């Protein structure tokens, strides 16, 4: 606990110091260095607390009404703190080099100030045990990214993305505020331990509170249809910020969901149905939208939606297990969801950093302007490939292990349960399979179009990322593989975390449930290691055979074309067309087609623009309606000071008279 709070203090201090640095390199050195150091200080003790499953707390009085400085690290908090510290440290390292070209031109001090503030506020959200403290940390965590997103504020699109983010973050915060106010009605303070006791006997039932939590925290996590800010904000932000936001910040929404489940007492089956429904919608629609994207960072943002959907599926399975009194289902569902939170932080962080390396050197992440990057950027390409395989849920990487837990829970519970339990679980299994397949297709497209083939646009100067950018990617790629192979051991870490969530079931029941998965996971790890050894042997054999022979590179056979160009290759949209064609109605792809005419056509063109049904059919009409309604009140804002004072005077007098009536 001491180390964690020291880390927070160091983050804030170095953030403020970096402000002094202004636009110079010193700002980066102070800000990123401070963040890296703070995370390095806090990480070991957090990991130790997670492994010991110990709980430490500090409770100090605070003059704010209903508030107290009550912080606690329990296994659940520690489990979320580990990826925060890990990814923040790596992103700070990466960002230091990523932002280097901007030094002298952009206010780097402000950037690192808000970066460190974001990390510190995420830590505070994870350890706060008082409603007021939590809301303050949450609000800081919602505001700090805005200034990070607006780094390139001279671009119109970036400013628009900032607006979208701000509105989404605040709408979510409103629901969380109402959640705490309703939960704390009649309670002496908003300390979580008091609220947990209080939550069990609420007059209106905890169902309404559950819905508030789903909307409030879901807006942060990116449940469909509350996801609209993700595909706008992630491409606009600098890449290490995207990695941090997608890797851990949106997970704080998931943390909020888990924490509110512990505050709300027993759960109803319909909560589980709701979460499974949300998970299926977010997961399947997220990956379908990702398929149709042309911009790599937008594609990754939609994949965050998809993975949040998988996490929601796990939570739904866990809640169903709790409601139907099935400890194995409970443990595997929640365990899978939590494990996926950790895994997604690793591979999504890795993928965004990889996208950042491409953007850094090529200046664009439009997939149709890239190609053949594997040759100039072998490290980035290989790391991206590892991340792509992990996010597609392929063994032996970590994405597979967590999805496997959910599969196993759903299959095991579904076989013996009643129809009420059977139906959602079978849908979960089917949904997960569909998501996994589509994700694999999507990343085949992304990796193939960007890294394989030959360059689509002739551009010189594409080079491998610098050392500070390569090292974080390599570490994350290695962690993806290690976590996947060591998944049976991870189950022991997950046990206490899941045990803390269940009110009916203790830690032992959770562990017993999770141990179901140990055998299969162990076999898969063993098999993977065997296959790996075989692969290495084959590569070695190939090298030995070719040792004394002549090896030459030649272009791929071009089917007899005399003048092939890079632009003749499959584009990202043509590669995905067979699949996107199936989902035309949802995707709302708009196409501009100029067909070739006559016998000797003079010109033709084709371009397609993926849309978002929720943005275009739900949010834009609603918000423009709201804007129209309120622009009706513009006449009130006429600029006459005298009348403004009159409004105030009349209001005050009316209130006074009403009070004295």
């Amino acid at each position, binding site marked *: 606990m001491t180390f964690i709070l020291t880390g927070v203090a160091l983050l804030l201090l170095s953030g403020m110091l970096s402000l002094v640095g202004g636009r110079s390199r010193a700002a980066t050195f102070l800000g990123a260095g401070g963040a890296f150091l703070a995370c390095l200080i806090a990480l070991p003790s957090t990991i130790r607390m997670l492994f010991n499953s110990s709980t430490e707390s500090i409770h100090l009085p605070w003059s704010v009404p209903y508030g107290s400085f009550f912080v606690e690290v329990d296994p659940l908090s520690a489990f979320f703190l580990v990826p925060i510290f890990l990814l923040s440290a790596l992103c700070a390292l990466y960002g230091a080099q990523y932002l280097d070209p901007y030094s002298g031109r952009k206010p780097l001090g402000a950037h690192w100030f808000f970066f460190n503030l974001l990390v510190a506020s995420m830590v505070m959200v994870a350890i706060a045990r008082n409603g007021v403290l939590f809301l303050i940390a949450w609000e800081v965590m919602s505001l700090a990214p805005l200034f990070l997103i607006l780094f390139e504020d001279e671009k119109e699109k970036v400013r628009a993305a900032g607006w979208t983010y701000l509105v989404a973050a605040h709408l979510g915060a409103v629901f969380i505020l109402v959640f705490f106010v309703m939960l704390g009605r009649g309670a002496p303070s908003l300390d979580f331990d008091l609220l947990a006791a209080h939550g069990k006997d609420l007059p209106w039932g905890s169902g309404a509170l559950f819905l508030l939590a789903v909307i409030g925290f879901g807006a942060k996590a990116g449940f469909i249809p509350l996801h609209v800010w993700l595909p706008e904000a992630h491409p606009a932000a600098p890449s290490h910020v995207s990695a941090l936001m997608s890797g851990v910040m949106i997970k704080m929404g998931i943390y909020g969901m888990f924490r509110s489940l512990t505050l709300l007492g027993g759960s109803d089956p319909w909560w589980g149905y709701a979460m499974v429904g949300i998970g299926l919608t977010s997961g399947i629609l997220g990956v379908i939208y990702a398929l149709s994207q042309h911009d790599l960072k937008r594609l990754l943002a939609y994949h965050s939606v998809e993975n949040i959907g998988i996490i929601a599926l796990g939570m739904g399975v866990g809640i169903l297990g709790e409601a139907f009194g099935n400890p194995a289902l409970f443990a595997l569902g929640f365990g899978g969801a939590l494990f996926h939170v950790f895994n997604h932080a690793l591979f999504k962080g890795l993928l965004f950093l990889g996208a950042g390396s491409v953007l850094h050197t090529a200046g664009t992440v439009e997939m149709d302007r890239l190609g053949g990057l594997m040759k100039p950027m072998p490290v980035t390409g290989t790391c991206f490939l590892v991340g792509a395989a992990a996010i597609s849920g392929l063994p032996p990487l970590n994405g597979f292990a967590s999805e496997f837990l959910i599969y196993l829970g759903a299959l095991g519970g579904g076989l013996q349960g009643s129809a009420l339990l059977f139906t959602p679980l079978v849908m979960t299994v089917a949904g997960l399979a569909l998501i996994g397949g589509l994700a694999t297709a999507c990343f085949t497209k992304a990796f193939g179009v960007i890294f394989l083939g030959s360059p689509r646009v002739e551009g010189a100067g594409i080079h491998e990322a610098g050392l500070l950018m390569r090292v974080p990617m390599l570490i994350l790629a290695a962690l993806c593989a290690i976590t996947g192979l060591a998944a049976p051991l991870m189950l022991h870490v997950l046990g206490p975390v899941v045990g803390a969530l269940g009110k009916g079931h203790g830690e032992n029941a959770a562990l017993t449930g999770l141990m179901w998965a140990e055998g299969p996971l162990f076999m898969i790890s063993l098999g993977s290691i065997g296959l790996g050894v075989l692969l290495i042997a084959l590569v070695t054999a190939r090298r030995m055979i070719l040792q004394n022979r002549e090896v030459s590179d030649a272009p791929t056979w071009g089917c007899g074309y005399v003048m092939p160009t890079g632009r003749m290759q499959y584009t990202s949209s043509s590669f995905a067309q067979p699949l996107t064609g199936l989902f035309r109605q949802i995707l709302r792809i708009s196409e501009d087609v100029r067909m070739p005419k006559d016998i000797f056509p003079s010109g033709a063109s084709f371009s397609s623009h993926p849309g978002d049904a929720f943005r275009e059919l739900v949010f834009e009409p609603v918000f423009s309606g709201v804007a129209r309604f309120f622009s009706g009140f513009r006449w009130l804002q*006429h*600029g006459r000071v005298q*009348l403004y*004072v009159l409004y105030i*005077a009349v209001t005050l007098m009316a209130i006074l008279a009403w009070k004295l009536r």
Partner: protein
Amino acid sequence: MANLIDTVMILLILTNFALLGSSLLGMCINIAAFQGILIGVLPFLTGSGPVLAETAAMAIGTMALKGFVFPWLMFRAIRDTNVKREMEPFVGYSTSLMFGVAALVGSLWLAGHLVLPAGARGLTGASLIMPASFFTIMAGLFLIIARKKAITQVLGYLVMENGIYVFGASIVMERPWLVELGVLLDVFVAVFTMGIVIFYINREFDSIDASRLAHLRDWRRTRGASSTGV
């Protein structure tokens, strides 16, 4: 003592009417200055025992500021900016006086209904102190709302502050000073800033008509006329 306080209060009410009915800017500044001195006397009358040294110092300081420094600052602002020596009302003088009567009635009603902490009124037995303070506040607000010039708004703030001062004096006999000090500082800054701002606005726009500040608003109608403020 109670009679003396009530006499002061009646004088205060009369000055407010004079402010509402007067068309001369210089006259209004003088009346406000007189009002400042008038209420500055209050602490000497409301205290139960002998006057404390710090009370006296505060009272004299207030009188000096409101009676001499502020008027001097405002006269200087008028001189520097060459404005017309007229109040330029949105609401006519006789209508203003009618509002004054209504506000006085309202103040009396308010004072009768307001629940005050024990001992707030009983100490002196003066019955007019509460209504007079409310009336002064309302008159100040009215001056802000119903007069065009920026300088008359400063004047309105001053009058309003006088009302708050009297209200404070009636609530806490001995120590209204804590509140008073804060408010006085605000008003001082306001007068000072306004003087500077008015000067610069005048230099830029050749007018210190506050209604023309509408040019500075952040929203303009996109279609049609650019502004309706002139």
